[in-house]
């Protein structure tokens, strides 16, 4: 089973979105890789509170997250991996975690970000991280909800 979906969503677990994706990919474990949340007990609790019932949630920093993803990719249980930014995905890839597809689900607007596709924005560093991931053999796909058709990052990247 292993890693069923590796997804960038800056809202991490939020409401029904998590429920729908977990069902769509058939996973019952969520691995969140986010340095800020991992090191902040209060934020951890908020995220755990938001998780649908019956779903196991792990929150790790990048170093531990990379280790856990390697283990989870060999495990019988299907896991769903969430992070806030493609830059985290690149750190994980560079730490030796193999994943064929990176799903870009949600990156909101921000001071350094420009619109990329529909409601997804990206900063220069995030664009470069996605290009680098593609060079390393990870296909980067934009797909906000499970019902959407995936759109290749390379088809919307004007850089």
């Amino acid at each position, binding site marked *: 089973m292993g890693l069923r979906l590796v997804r960038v969503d800056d809202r991490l*677990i939020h*409401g029904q979105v998590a429920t729908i994706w977990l069902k769509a990919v058939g996973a019952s474990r969520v691995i969140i890789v986010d340095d800020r949340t991992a090191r902040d007990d209060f934020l951890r609790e908020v995220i755990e509170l938001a*998780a*649908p019932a019956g779903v196991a949630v792990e929150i790790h920093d990048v170093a531990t997250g990379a280790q856990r993803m390697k283990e989870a990719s060999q495990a019988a249980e299907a896991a769903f991996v969430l992070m806030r930014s493609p830059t985290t995905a690149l750190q994980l890839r560079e730490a030796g975690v193999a994943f064929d597809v990176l799903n870009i689900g949600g990156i*909101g*607007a921000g001071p350094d970000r420009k619109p990329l596709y529909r409601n997804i*924005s990206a900063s220069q560093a995030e664009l470069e991280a996605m290009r680098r991931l593609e060079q390393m053999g990870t296909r980067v796909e934009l797909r906000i909800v499970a019902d959407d058709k995936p759109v290749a990052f390379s088809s919307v990247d004007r850089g």
Partner: protein
Amino acid sequence: MLASAAMISGEMGRVQAVGLEPTDSPESFAERVEAAIDAGRPTLVLTDLYGGTPHNVVCAMARHHDVRCISGVNLGLLLEALTTTDALDDALVERLLPVARDGIVDSTGRLSLSRD
């Protein structure tokens, strides 16, 4: 929902709606919520989905701001919250929760007459 509440209760006190837009990041949404709350005064925040982004953002704000968040807002809860003169404390929140729950009723199921 605020317009509906105004239709029923007329003049409303300090109340604001903050919507989550599709292009929002949690940070940009949090900025608008922070702008809407009254610093130094307790603020009641009513959100729709438990576990949704507005709920998560407001819960995270509770560390640094005097906010209370109730999720599962409906018009009955909003009206009760708008018309109370009680201070925002645990006791008020305990009184508001059943108001919201009691507003959810299988209404036609309660009709005793059968259809023609």
